[in-house]
């Protein structure tokens, strides 16, 4: 029996397990707060609304359309996953890349301009998105390492600058009758990412492309890069103590710049696989930065800053964001899911404290048990 107990304790002490538990707690409390807000706004439909958010594509009773909308959710989730990877990669090196939103915007601008404006095939456009977004991330990294500019503030400034620039650039490929860019399907068919039969699985949802697979591969790649390579180890060491890393002969300035470039590249690739699937066009003249990047921050922290955890967290966040569009719009607005996500990020701040508390509790319990065992031995 004693053996069983120690086994149980060891699971509870496992860091991954604790992270999972605390993430689930964050989600539950987030839902609870969302429900309370819905109750305050209008108690009549609150239950249905929260169910609609949880169900998302299951809202459709026919399996065919449910599968189709699952596909759409997956496409959006794959872009979100790339943003989450971008955030967590920078975070491992001790940088808070809030510029993921701007890098995403630049990725969108570059991929659409290359595909629609220059008529390039998809792989060139995707590469352009990656390169330009990496360059933008690199600027923040350069300013941080050589001029000590706080990366959060420089990133925010670059976010707005890139939004205005991309609006200006994409106005050259605008449809004449709408505020959107020309749709890829008519302007340049080669610009669309190939489906490779994936669309057949999701009831012929033509937006499901290799992008979904690419994003998961990227997550695994980031996981290996960070945990299994010398380069990843150097980056993490730089994040933990810049001065110690320098002392050990690592090029800490170069490491910061490279990190921000990789981080930007990941975000740019996210934008590329999203916009090159043809699922949405860019709205020219939009005055706010797309929420995808900021949601990436939520997904990264909810996934416990682990690339594999980010896969599940991104899907979940996209699931409830899409679910928000099914609430009864005569009573509520779709932003209720943004509210829940914001609360979930806020609660993620408490995870560290929660773990500390749990470990303290476990220590105390073990001590008590040890004392009991000793007493028992004496008697």
């Amino acid at each position, binding site marked *: 029996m004693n053996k069983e107990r120690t086994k149980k304790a060891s699971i509870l002490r496992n860091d991954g397990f604790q992270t999972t538990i605390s993430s689930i707690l964050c989600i539950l409390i987030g839902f609870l707060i969302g429900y309370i807000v819905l109750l305050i706004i209008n108690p009549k439909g609150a239950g249905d609304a929260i169910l609609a958010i949880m169900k998302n594509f299951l809202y459709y009773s026919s399996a065919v359309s449910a599968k189709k909308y699952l596909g759409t959710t997956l496409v959006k989730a794959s872009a979100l996953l790339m943003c989450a990877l971008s955030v967590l990669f920078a975070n491992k090196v001790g940088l808070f890349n809030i510029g993921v939103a701007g890098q995403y915007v630049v990725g969108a601008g570059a991929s659409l301009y290359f595909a629609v404006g220059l008529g390039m095939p998809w792989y060139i456009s995707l590469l352009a998105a990656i390169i330009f977004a990496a360059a933008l991330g690199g600027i923040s990294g350069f300013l941080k390492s050589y001029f000590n500019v706080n990366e959060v503030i420089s990133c925010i400034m670059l976010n707005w600058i890139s939004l205005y620039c991309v609006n200006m650039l994409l106005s050259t490929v605008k449809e004449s009758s709408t505020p959107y860019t020309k749709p890829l399907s008519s302007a340049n068919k080669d610009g669309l990412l190939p489906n490779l039969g994936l669309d057949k699985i999701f009831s012929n949802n033509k937006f499901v492309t290799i992008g979904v697979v690419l994003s998961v591969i990227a997550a695994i790649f980031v996981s290996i890069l960070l945990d299994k390579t010398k380069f990843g180890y150097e980056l993490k060491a730089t994040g933990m103590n810049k001065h110690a890393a320098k002392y050990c002969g690592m090029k800490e300035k170069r490491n910061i710049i490279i990190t921000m470039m990789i981080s930007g590249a990941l975000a740019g690739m996210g934008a590329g696989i999203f916009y090159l699937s043809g699922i949405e066009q860019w709205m020219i003249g939009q005055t706010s930065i797309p929420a995808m990047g900021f949601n990436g921050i939520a997904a990264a922290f909810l996934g416990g800053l682990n690339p594999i955890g980010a896969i599940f967290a991104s899907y979940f966040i996209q699931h409830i964001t899409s679910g928000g569009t099914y609430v009864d719009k005569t009573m509520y607005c779709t932003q209720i899911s943004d509210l829940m996500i*914001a609360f979930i990020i806020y609660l993620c701040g408490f995870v560290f404290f929660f773990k500390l508390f749990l470990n303290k509790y476990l220590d105390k319990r073990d001590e008590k048990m040890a004392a009991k065992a000793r007493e028992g031995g004496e008697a």
Partner: protein
Amino acid sequence: MLLLIQYTLIFASVLVLVALGGCFSEHSGVINIGLEGIMVIGALGGALMMKFLGAGAPAAVVILLVVLSSVLSGILCSLLLGVAAIHFKADQTLLGTALNLLGAAVAVVLVRAINLSEDIDNVSSTIKYGEAKSAFVIRIGDFEFNWFMLIAFVVLILSYIVLYKTKFGMRLYACGEHPQAADSVGINVYKMRYAGVMISGALGGLGGLVYITAGVSEWKFENGVAGFGFLALAVMIFGQWKPLNIGLAALLFGFFRALSNVYTGFDFLLSLKLPSVIYNMLPYIISLIVLVFVSKKSRAPKAEGIPYDKGQR
């Protein structure tokens, strides 16, 4: 020209208020990146109060109630940061980001719910407050004097006095530089940090109100405050965490922000034929350049961003 001065002053007022808010919070040792969200919530509190007061009330009452409402909403919002950062030792950058998202989401959800309940077809996130807003403005010839310009100036002077000439200010400084030392001489670090965060909430909320009443008489809350909270942080760094320098920095940034509103009134700027987007980008570009020059030797409070742990040496 007069219009340019007017806009420069009003935008500078916003930046002074919010940057001073950031200054108080950072001097106590808490980084407040959530100023943007606090501004939105403060603006929401003020706008709702103006909406419900309507046109009838006397100007003094309107000013008092609206300012009070936005200050209180700002403080309430900042407490979310305060409790988590001070008592639960949470990551302050993450909390600030959460606060920014939360501010925007709460404002949109609430405003839409109110609009929907009044009119089933009204799905916008806009609040109109034209009548009540006129209480803040006095016309002197062509120049629109706004009471907030005076309030911002008074707050600036007060902040200087509080931070440099009072016991409270000195203690606040100590908590941001070396909290352990402050604690050892009997200063309650937690209390001082709460005070710093709450002052930043009050000033941030007020700044949000000033921002949405600057020149317009309705506000679409989906737009938030367009990065002004972060511009204010840039102003604070440019001002090296000192109130008077912050005042000057805010004037400079306010000028560039005002240019984008009124550049069409200047013949030589029009003759340059730059697209209007350039003027929109200008404040952000200038702040980036300024940061490059001042960040190298910046003297931020030493203990900012580090949760205070009594057991630590």
